[in-house]
């Protein structure tokens, strides 16, 4: 992961049909949201495993969102 000094990294696990679509729509409507949030698509938040969250923190992200 790109670790710029001072730039926060937040991973948002977004489910394909709900949150990812919402994020997509937000992009299409040119809504502003902080660049710290990095979107990762999952088929459903049910797929989200504790390990996915833990490993994200182990790699140095500052926050994890589960959106669905």
């Amino acid at each position: 992961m790109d670790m710029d000094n001072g730039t926060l990294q937040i991973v948002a696990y977004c489910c394909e049909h709900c949150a990812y679509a919402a994020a997509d729509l937000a992009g299409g409507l040119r809504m502003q949201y902080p660049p710290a949030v990095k979107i990762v698509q999952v088929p459903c938040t049910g797929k989200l495993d504790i390990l996915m969250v833990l490993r994200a923190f182990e790699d140095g992200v500052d926050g994890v969102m589960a959106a669905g």
Partner: protein
Amino acid sequence: MKVLLEQTGLEAERVRMFNLSSAMAEAFADAAKEMTKQITELGPSPLRTQTENE
């Protein structure tokens, strides 16, 4: 999940769940802003500092 994070030494507030549906674009942007604000207050992950120091 939050309990495990605390035991490991990270703040439980670093992980959060948000409920959205596909039409809630503004809610997504708001959630992103809120999370960023919260994480900014918590500061960078203490694990990250360790990585950068290596």
